[in-house]
C-alpha cells in the first residue's frame, strides 16, 4: 500500500479505500491464522483455552495520548502492553486481543503504519495475537489524531487468585523497578517544559514477569499494574479494600534522578506519576525473597525491590521519610497540578 498520503474520510467509507487500509495495511501487519479467516469475529477453539486454566479473563481499555509517539513507545505499544498487563496482573496468561481504531482524517498514513508495526512487535513480544478489530475514520476535530481500543482474553490457571482485598498484616510490598518513567517521559515529550531530560517510557509487557512470580509463589495476595495514578493510587486501593495500612520506606523507592529532578522543578510527586511497565505485588513475607529473586532474573524485573510492608490499620498508605518522619500518601482528588512557586 502506498503510504505517502493521509487518512481521509474515504478510508472509513466502506469502499475500496477502506478495503485497502484494512486488508493491505492492518490485516497484513497483524497477520495470524485466526485473523486470516476474515470473518466478522474471531473463532477461538475452546479446547486450547480449557487446557490452560479454569477461568477466562476478559478486559478492555482505550488509549488516548498526546503525543502519539514518545521516547520509549507510542500509542500502539501502550494499547498492546496495557491490555496484556491488565490480564497478566489478574494471574491470566494473555492470548488474544481485539483492536479498534478511531482515526481523525488527516493522520499521515506513514505514522499509522509505523504505529501498527510497533503494535505487531509488542504483540509478538508478549506472545499474543490480534485476532479481530474495527476501524472508523472521523472528521477533522472529531478525535485527536488516533484513539485505540483494545480488548483481550486470557486464561487464569487454577489456584491463582490475586485480589486488591487480600493483603494481610505482615505481607511485603514489591515493585519491579523505576517508578514514574512513563509519566515523566510524556510530560517531557509534550515539549512545553523546555526541559532537557533523558527519560524514556517504561512501556513493556509484564506477563512473563508475572508468570515467573507465580511459578515461585502461587499465593501472591495482591497484584496490579501501576498505570494512571501511579504507585500511590494502587496502594491506596489495596489498603482500603484490605482494610490494612501500607507503610512505605522512602529510601527504598526506586525513582530515577531525572524523574526526581523533573518532579522537584514542577512540584509533582513521582508516586502519582503514571507507569506502563510497572507492577505492585503484595506477597507473604516468607515468599518475598523467592519472588524477588525470580523477578530479578527477568528483564522487566531486573530492578525489582521491596518498598514496604503491610501493617494493621484502617486503609491508609503511610510514607516513612528518610528522616524518620511520616506522612500520609492519599489518593489524589484529581489530576496533579504543578505549583506556582
Amino acid at each position: 500500500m502506498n503510504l505517502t498520503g493521509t487518512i481521509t474520510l474515504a478510508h472509513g467509507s466502506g469502499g475500496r479505500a477502506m478495503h485497502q487500509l484494512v486488508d493491505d495495511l492492518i490485516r497484513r501487519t497483524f497477520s495470524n491464522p485466526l485473523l486470516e479467516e476474515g470473518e466478522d469475529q474471531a473463532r477461538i477453539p475452546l479446547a486450547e483455552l480449557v487446557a490452560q486454566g479454569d477461568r477466562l479473563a476478559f478486559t478492555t481499555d482505550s488509549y488516548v495520548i498526546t503525543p502519539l509517539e514518545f521516547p520509549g513507545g507510542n500509542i500502539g505499544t501502550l494499547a498492546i502492553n496495557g491490555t496484556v498487563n491488565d490480564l497478566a496482573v489478574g494471574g491470566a496468561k494473555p492470548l488474544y486481543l481485539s483492536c479498534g481504531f478511531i482515526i481523525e482524517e488527516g493522520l499521515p498514513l506513514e505514522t499509522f503504519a509505523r504505529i501498527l508495526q510497533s503494535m505487531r512487535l509488542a504483540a509478538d513480544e508478549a506472545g499474543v495475537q490480534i485476532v479481530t478489530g474495527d476501524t472508523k475514520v472521523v472528521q477533522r476535530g472529531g478525535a485527536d489524531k488516533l484513539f485505540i481500543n483494545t480488548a483481550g482474553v486470557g486464561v487464569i490457571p487454577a489456584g491463582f487468585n490475586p485480589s486488591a482485598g487480600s493483603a494481610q498484616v505482615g505481607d511485603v510490598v514489591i515493585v519491579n523497578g523505576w517508578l514514574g518513567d512513563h509519566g515523566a517521559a510524556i510530560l517531557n515529550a509534550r515539549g512545553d517544559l523546555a526541559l532537557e531530560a533523558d527519560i524514556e517510557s517504561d512501556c513493556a509487557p509484564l506477563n512473563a514477569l508475572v508468570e515467573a512470580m507465580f511459578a515461585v509463589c502461587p499465593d501472591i495476595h495482591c497484584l496490579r499494574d501501576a498505570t494512571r495514578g501511579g504507585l500511590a493510587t494502587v496502594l491506596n486501593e489495596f489498603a482500603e479494600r484490605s482494610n490494612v495500612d501500607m507503610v512505605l520506606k522512602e529510601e527504598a523507592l526506586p525513582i530515577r534522578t531525572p524523574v526526581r529532578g523533573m518532579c522537584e522543578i514542577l512540584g509533582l510527586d513521582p508516586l502519582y506519576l503514571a507507569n506502563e511497565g510497572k507492577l505492585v505485588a503484595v506477597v507473604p513475607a516468607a515468599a518475598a525473597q523467592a519472588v524477588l529473586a525470580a523477578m530479578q532474573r527477568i528483564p522487566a524485573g531486573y530492578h525489582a525491590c521491596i518498598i514496604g510492608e503491610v501493617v494493621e490499620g484502617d486503609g491508609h498508605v503511610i510514607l516513612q521519610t528518610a528522616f524518620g518522619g511520616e506522612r500520609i500518601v492519599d489518593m489524589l482528588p484529581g489530576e496533579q497540578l504543578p505549583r506556582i512557586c
Partner: protein
Amino acid sequence: MKYMDEFRDPATAKKLVAEIHKLASTALSQREPLQIMEFCGGHTHTLFKYGIESMLPDNIEMVHGPGCPVCVLPMARVDDCVAIAEQPGVIFTTFGDAMRVPGTRKSLLQAKADGCDVRMVYSPMDALALARKNPEREVVFFALGFETTMPSTALTLLQAHREGLKNFSLFCNHITTPATMRAILTDPDLRLDGFLAPGHVSMVIGTHPYDFVTRDYHKPLVITGFEPLDMLQALWMLVKQFAEGRCEVENQYARIVPEAGNVAGLKAIAEVYETREHSEFRGLGNIGDAGIQIREAYAAYDAEKKFGLPFDFAQGAVGYDPEHLKCADVLRGVIKPWECPAFAKTCNPQNPLGALMVSPEGSCAAYYAYGKLAKRKETA
C-alpha cells in the same frame, strides 16, 4: 541530586531534630508551647512532605500561614478570571494550581470543561509565546503570587511592550508578603510567637522589609529555604532566639538571599507595578497596600482595563466566602483547621469549599491528610 541531596541528609536532620528537642526540653520547658507560623505554603508543603512536623517536640506548634497565593485568592477573583476566559477569542493562561480554586460560579477547570480556552502554562513567557503564535487571539496571563513570581511577570510584560504585541495582557493579582504579614500581626486575636519567612520572596526583596516584625511587634523571624534541612536549621535558629531571649531577623538562607535582594528584579517590579489601595484577601478581608496593580503607563497590557470588568475588589468589597467557613481564622492561626465546622465534612479535597482545601499547600488540605495520620497514632 546535586545541590539537593546535600540538604536532605538524614543524619544531619536527626542531629538538628535532637538539638531542637534539647532546647525545647530545657530552655523552653517553663513557658507556653511556642506557636511558630511558617508564612509560606511552600514551607507547609516541605513540613508535610518530609514528615518534619511529626518529629517536632510537643511544645512547638507550627501554624500554617496564608503564604499560598492560591489560598488567599478570593472567589470573586476567580469569577473575574472565568468572565475573562468566557470572552470570545480569549486564550486564558494560568499556573496549574489556580485551575481548581472554586469561584462562586465555577473554577477555571470547570470553565475549560465548558468550552473556554483555558491553558495551563509553566511560565508567563509561555503565555507570551502563545500570544506571538496566535495574533488573532487575545492571550491573558493570570499573574498570581507573592514577590517570587512578580519579577517574571513584570519582565514578560516589558518584553511584550518591547515587541509591540497588542494581544497580550496580564490579569494582575500579585500580592506582597510584608503587608500581608503586617495584617496578621495587627490582628487582636494573634497568638503567634515567631515566623519562618519564605526564602524565595527574600531572594527578591532582601531581608530588611521584615525589620518591622521584630522592631514593632517583637516577634523573631528567620528567613529560610525550602529543603528540609533549611527548615530544620531555621527552626533551630528560631527556638535558640527564644531560649536566649533575643528577637531578630535572621537569614538562614544566606546562600541564596542577599541582604538587599535582587536589584534587577526589584527594578522591573517598580517599573511595572504599584500598590492598590484596596485588595481583598480570601479569609483576611481587605488589606490596604498589599495588592499590586499595573501602572497606568502599561495600561495596554492590563486585562482589567482591556476587559473593563466590574471589579468589586477595587471598592474593597469583602464577603463572598460562605459565613460558616472559618478560612479566616485558620489563615490567621486563630483556630486549627479541624475546628472549622465544615472541615472534612462539607469541605474536603474532593469538594473544596475554601481555597485552603484546594491547594495541597493549603493548611486544610494538609491537615485533612495529616489528621488521618494523627488519628492512626492516637488509636495505635
